């Protein structure tokens, strides 16, 4: 190498390295800002409505993120996730109303029930591929909802009300202000994000993606497909279950139509798919856009009767599937790469 060439190399190398260093810091700074915004939100917005909206955004983001662990990373598309949501909501509530157990213990018990249920559903159903699995999960969801409506012990179609208590973190109830609920769901969601982030970066995530992209190849290199699908489903069921318990304590009333419906299962998928499946931030992006959008259309087009939000959901879902299967996050990533020529 001649001296001029060396000089040229150094000249082009140096600024690039400096820029890469700055660019590597961008995500950390953005993450810090986002966290700060999330923590400050209830202090800035003191009215119940925006707080309620933020709580629901986080709740749905958590459900979508949990679904994403199984569907996005592991490629098993379930259309019956409301089963786990409702199973935990009912377990923790029943434990509370009948034998007076603390809702936090109820949350854990409910999560255990949901994990057990996920193994019971998953073990036989994971033999099914693609469309068959998706339809099987719809069928299971419908069966569970019908059983819940007709089971008098858990209140049947009338539903189940939880008793009012004094505000306390210990009993998981706050009547005077919504902000403790906000911080609880924020913590739960952050935990869910953390676990997803860890999964994405560790061996487990590589197993999941291998199973998603080519099950035969994954099996041929010694990955036990059923076992890791079950692991993915158990982890995501546990998070969906925790969200279910939170919902029960937040609303203090449950009925099969609000915790077991197919529309909830669908909503979970819509948020994750539009935001971007198989990405860490997709579910949050999806929930942060679509949940307020749904509110907005209800305010401006009057009630759920016009179904404008569903119109948009359906249209977006098809558009994303056809044009950009990696969702909005994928779109942003592609744009970012073009813009900065990574």
């Amino acid at each position, binding site marked *: 190498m001649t001296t001029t060439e060396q000089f040229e190399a150094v000249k082009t190398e140096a600024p690039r390295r400096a820029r890469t260093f700055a660019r590597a810091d961008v995500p950390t700074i953005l993450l810090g800002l986002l966290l700060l915004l999330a923590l400050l939100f209830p202090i800035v917005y003191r009215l119940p409505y925006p707080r309620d909206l933020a709580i629901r955004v986080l709740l749905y983001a958590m459900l979508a993120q949990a679904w994403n662990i199984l*569907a996005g990373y592991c*490629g098993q*598309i379930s*259309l019956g996730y409301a089963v786990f949501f409702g199973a935990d909501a009912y377990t923790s509530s029943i434990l509370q109303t009948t034998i007076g157990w603390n809702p936090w213990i109820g949350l854990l018990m409910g999560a255990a029930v949901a994990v057990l249920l996920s193994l019971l559903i998953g073990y*036989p*159903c994971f*033999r*099914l591929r*693609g*469309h*068959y699995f*998706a*339809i*099987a999960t*719809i*069928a*299971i969801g*419908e*069966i569970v909802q*019908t*059983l819940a*409506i*007709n089971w008098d012990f858990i209140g049947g179609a009338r539903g189940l009300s939880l008793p009012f208590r004094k505000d306390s973190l210990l009993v998981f109830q706050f009547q005077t202000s919504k902000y403790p609920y906000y911080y609880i769901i924020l913590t739960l969601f952050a935990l869910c994000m953390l676990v997803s982030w860890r999964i994405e970066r560790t061996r487990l995530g590589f197993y999941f993606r291998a199973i998603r992209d080519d099950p035969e190849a994954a099996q041929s290199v010694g990955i036990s497909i059923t076992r890791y699908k079950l692991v993915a489903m158990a982890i995501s069921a546990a998070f969906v279950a925790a969200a279910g318990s939170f919902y029960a304590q937040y609303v203090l009333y449950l009925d099969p139509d609000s915790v077991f419906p*197919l529309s909830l299962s*669908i909503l979970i*998928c*819509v948020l994750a*798919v539009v935001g971007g*499946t198989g990405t860490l931030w997709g579910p949050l992006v999806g929930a942060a856009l679509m949940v307020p959008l749904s509110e907005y259309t209800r305010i401006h087009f009057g009630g759920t*009767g*016009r*179904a*404008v939000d*569903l*119109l948009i*959901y*359906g*249209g*977006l*879902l*098809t*558009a*994303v*599937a*056809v*044009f950009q*299967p990696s969702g909005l996050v994928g779109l942003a990533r592609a744009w970012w790469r073009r813009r900065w020529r990574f």
Partner: protein
Amino acid sequence: MFTVPPPEVLAQGILSGILMGFVYALIAVGLSLIFGLMEIVNFAHGEFLMLSMYTAFWAWALFGLDPLLSVPLCAAALFLLGWLTYAGIIRRVLGGPMLAQIFATFGLGIFLRAAAQFLWTPDFRQVGRAWVQGPVNILGISVGLPQVVASGACLVAFGLLYWFITKTETGMALEATAEDRQAAALMGINTARMFALGWGIGSACVGVAGAFLASFFYIFPQVGFLFALIAYVIVALGGFGSIPGSLVAGLIIGVVEVLGGLFIAPAFKYVAVYLIYLLIVLVRPQGLLGKF
């Protein structure tokens, strides 16, 4: 839990189950045809049915056409819808990931359902003063005349479809494409056109079934969902891609639905149907007459 119904109720139940089974079979065969052709499940199938029922309803409400007369209209409209769905959506996701394949039609289903609700309100509607109405007596069992007409017509449509697939040149080309895409293309079959045709015919089947259903069933935006779930069960039971399988499975499901309602409780009749789906896909994934 279990109640044993008296024999005459049982006989009537089984007969009406069989009659409904023919209609179910025609709905399911459209789904089965498309799946056999390209291994894609149309998750908007129920919404196609709903649109066909609304087409028949509006033809009656606006122009006074009886649902029986709007059968060709519904079939043509749905053929077009199926063709357009293939050209606009399915063609683009054919080689894509499973997720895109499922959510492309799933999203379309949600969109169509919401569009129907947006345009025509969620009200239940019904065609009044249809040409065929009232009960009819078959071997001492009383059943609705519209159901008899619908099931007879669906059986005829089914026969026509079977003749078309197995006896005509286009039908055989369709079958060849289903069996081996590449080989068919090498033999000079335009497979893209066969796919579009498959979507058109599959949807037209639903169109015919929808027009007949409109003469005796309530019409509302969510009506398709129930029929679609039953159609998935039938297709899985009969074997994805098998046309005779759909007919056999349609009859079985029609009867099981009624028996589940009679023996257990009306609320649980669909639970019985879904349990059959789970049992079938787990024990015999290729279905009764399926090839795969």
